[in-house]
């Protein structure tokens, strides 16, 4: 860091201004979340008679317990479980099928390999939002509405991860595969004993990104989970607002919003290095 300690860094007043600017920015980013947290710790009366307090109240346990056990349409604990299954299912499913097909593309010659490669490439272009209506029909025909398979399968039908693993496998020295072949090791043996352990960091980084992607899905669960018991937490929040003129149960809704943020935020902050790596890699 010594060479960064040059003449262009501000000192004294300038340094404080820099910190001040950053703190203002952070305050702007934190404020909505702070307010949601405060709202999740007070009573409904404190909120519906504005202005609401800006410091937490004493209803933290009461509100969160109410949200988790009864919620509005379905207990939030059920929605948390649904989100967890969906996010982990998407992350693991996509990583598994992508590892296998990237291995096949890089380490084998087989008929249709080029065609397969280009088909995969096409899927990079189309987010699920573009093909929602027909995809919905497919899921309905399979009887997969309100099911975990229905939540997971359409979202692993893309090849971003295949590309990442292909790129990574290309950097693995040829000598390793050569040695394995000379030793008479079967391809799958090479895959499990050498390639997979070498890919550990990439897999973990990708898991972080895909977990957040799956957890934060909104439109897809909104379409296919009509049963409140199958709602994911991120899409379930909006369902907690009453239709018409009734007043929303703000403390429970805000408690649910915070609960919806905690798992992905923990993943990002806890695995910051992997996360940054995964982000940069997956956008290359």
């Amino acid at each position, binding site marked *: 860091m010594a060479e960064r300690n040059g003449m262009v860094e501000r000192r004294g007043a300038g340094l404080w201004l820099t910190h001040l600017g950053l703190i203002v920015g952070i305050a702007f980013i934190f404020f909505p979340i702070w307010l949601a947290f405060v709202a999740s710790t007070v009573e409904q009366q404190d909120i519906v008679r504005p202005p609401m307090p800006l410091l937490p109240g004493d209803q933290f346990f009461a509100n969160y317990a109410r949200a988790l056990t009864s919620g509005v349409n379905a207990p939030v604990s059920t929605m948390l479980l649904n989100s967890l299954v969906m996010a982990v299912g998407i992350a693991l499913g996509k990583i598994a099928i992508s590892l296998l097909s990237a291995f096949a593309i890089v380490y084998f010659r087989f008929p249709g390999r080029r065609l397969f490669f280009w088909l995969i490439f096409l899927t990079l272009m189309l987010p699920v939002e573009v093909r929602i209506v027909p995809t919905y029909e497919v899921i309905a025909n399979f009887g997969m509405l309100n099911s975990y398979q229905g939540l997971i399968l359409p979202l692993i039908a893309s090849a971003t991860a295949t590309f990442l693993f292909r790129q990574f496998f290309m950097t693995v020295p040829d000598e390793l595969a050569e040695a394995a*072949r000379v030793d008479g090791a079967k391809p799958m043996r090479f895959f499990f004993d050498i390639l997979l352990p070498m890919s550990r960091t990439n897999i973990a980084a990708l898991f972080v990104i895909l977990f957040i992607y799956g957890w*934060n899905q909104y439109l897809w669960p909104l379409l296919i989970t009509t049963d409140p018991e199958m709602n994911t937490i991120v899409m379930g929040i909006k369902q907690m607002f009453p239709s018409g003129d009734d007043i929303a149960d703000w403390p429970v809704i805000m408690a649910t919003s915070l609960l919806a943020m905690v798992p992905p935020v923990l993943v990002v902050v806890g695995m910051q290095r992997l996360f940054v790596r995964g982000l940069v890699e997956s956008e290359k």
Partner: protein
Amino acid sequence: MEKRVKFKGIWLPILLVLPQILITAVFFFYPAGQAIWQSLFIPDPFGLSMQWVGLGNFEFLLSDRYYRASFVTTAVFSILVTVVSMGVALYLAVLADRLVRGSGTYRTLLIWPYAVAPAVAGVLWLFMFNTRVGVVTWYLGLLGYDWNHVLNEGEAMGLVVIASAWGRISYNFLFFLAGLQAIPRSVIEAAAIDGAHFWTRFRTIVFPLLSPTTFFLLVVNIIYSFFETFGVIHTITSGGPQQATTILVYKVYSDGFVGQDLGSSAAQSVILLAIVSLLTVVQFKYIERRVHY
């Protein structure tokens, strides 16, 4: 690029790619094909049969006042979201980059809103600006400003833009900070010795050197505001008032699922598809260029 060493066998690799082939065929290519196919038909009023209309759905869309309005809305929305989130992120990244110590702490503090789902961000901002109980609404009222995004189109747009940009700041901040830290200090110090002040240095050296990052973020943010902001719009405004915040993706949803107009919705999907493909091509072209930068 090819590997020198290949394993033998034909059935094993086919077996390995089979899961991905099956899933993408059923859940990707078939629905995408259906979208294109359906866009050429209109269902009869009883939903019993489909009538071939060729490009009729597209002609109708392009002459439809609401669809054209949605195009303009999408353009305004995505430009605003991109400019606001990239602007704030660049400002914070430049500040963090000036610090010798502590930029890591700020990075940790700024990184995590990335994990907040757009739909959750929507609920948070809706709560602050709620017409009945919102804190910001109340304080604005004290200042004599009557905030009502349920009725006022401009305010509705402003709110969905802020909520969408807010969650995007951390992503842009990360890439800008990485870009800034990759600029050699010696170049900047040389300019400083020549007497260039901060703003001059930024304008003539830092910003041009940062342009690959900026361009990349521009494309990525536009794609983001096209698609992933659906949750924000749906939670805050549901496209209203008077369709003032109905962006293209929202219209695909509201025409297809709420209005049950499958032909039109499919045609809209195809148009969106073309736009995304175009953006992706731009992005790939650019990335190829970056390799030689």
